[in-house]
């Protein structure tokens, strides 16, 4: 294991252990009260999902252009991150929305965009799983198209309707909240780095095992 793993894991674990303390200590938001605190985990999850989506797309471009197996490892990692953290966002979102605004779901820009991107990467994973041999290249195509789609979904849904708190919610956070928020973002991003490192390593080892099987036949 690369030497960074252990210290990074400890750091991330410590940050996540400390986060609830920070969150509890953060000022209570005036309109939504306690429920709003889910936002400290909800928003960073989306940050990770979109980072995963762009990682997948970028790695897919490299995979198609250069045929690099490493790039493919990063692509599948990005897609898995997008699916898992997207799911966290999709679950925490409605929980928050129900308490804060009384509805489980609304067809506004952020939610719809997030849902569509999430579905795209679920489709990516389904293709890799069930597409049979050679589906890595096909999935790369899906990853690229999925990422290119993001601005179009954003604009089309935006013109359609919007209710979600505007993006300006972040700058208008009170000082106590802002600190906690960025702390949680950092914790999630470091977690993402840790997961990428571990997952890519897993893929490399799988490729190695395949190599060994192949060499067995010699």
């Amino acid at each position, binding site marked *: 294991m690369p030497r960074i793993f252990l210290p990074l894991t400890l750091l991330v674990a410590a940050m996540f252990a400390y986060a609830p303390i920070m969150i509890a200590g953060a000022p209570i938001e005036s309109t939504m009260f306690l429920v709003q605190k889910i936002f400290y985990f909800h928003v960073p999850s989306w940050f990770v999902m979109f980072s995963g989506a762009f990682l997948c797309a970028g790695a897919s471009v490299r995979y198609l252009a250069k045929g690099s197996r490493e790039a493919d490892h990063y692509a599948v990692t990005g897609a898995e991150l997008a699916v898992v953290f997207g799911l966290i966002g999709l679950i925490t979102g409605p929980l928050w929305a129900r308490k804060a605004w009384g509805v489980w779901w609304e067809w506004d820009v952020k939610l719809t965009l997030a849902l569509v991107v999430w579905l795209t990467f679920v*489709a990516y994973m389904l293709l890799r799983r069930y597409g*049979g041999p050679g589906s890595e290249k*096909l999935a790369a*195509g899906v990853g*690229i*198209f*999925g990422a290119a789609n993001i601005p*179009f979904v954003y604009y*089309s849904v935006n013109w359609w309707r919007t209710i979600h708190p505007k993006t300006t919610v972040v700058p208008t956070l009170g000082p106590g909240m802002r600190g906690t928020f960025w702390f949680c973002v950092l914790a999630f991003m470091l977690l993402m780095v840790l997961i990428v490192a571990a997952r890519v390593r897993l893929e490399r080892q799988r490729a190695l095992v395949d190599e060994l099987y192949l060499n067995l036949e010699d």
Partner: protein
Amino acid sequence: MTFLRVVWLVMRKDLLVELRSREILYTTVFFAVSCVLVFAFGFVREGQPMGDVGAGILWIAVAFSGTLALGRAFERERQSETLRALLLAPVDRPALYVAKLLGVMTLMAAVQVVIVPLVALFFQAPLFEHFLMLAALLFAGTVGFTAVGTMFAAMLSRARSRDVLLPVLLYPITVPVIIAGVRGTAALLQAEPDPAAARAWLSLLVSFDVVFITLALWTFEPVMTD
């Protein structure tokens, strides 16, 4: 062999083959009509269609029948292993993509000729009042849907579980096309038609088309070669 000549040759061959059997044409048109009928049962209450469902149903029928046509078109190629023969020819691979795209679009045009009047009839939707605008929306939307669909259907022709994977992959990516198509059409159908809004949606569709056709032309060759 210029790019356009290759496109023309392959497209002509595809249309010739299709015209001989007319299998895909008939089944797709029939499917689209059944779609519209089923939605009629779902959305028409006491002889009156609910709200402006006409726009939505038109585009859903286009999307569903488009997926069917794409699947069938590439299934036929796969069965004859002819996609391999085309890939072996000394031609630009993207030309094959464009030829297939145009072929499926021609098919979709035929389908739309049938279902647009049908939707207008069943849902009392004044689809013919802003006909040019509607035609433009349908054209741009079909290009976008088919551009992505042809790419994915071609990719999947070598994969397993291709029948179910095509819609799974295609629908999330074509969400903007459906939204823009439906909202644009609805803007033309509402009580006070809003051609400006329809134009705005049309421009979104056109930019989608440009971006995704370009992407497809770039990625077609690396994706199709093993």
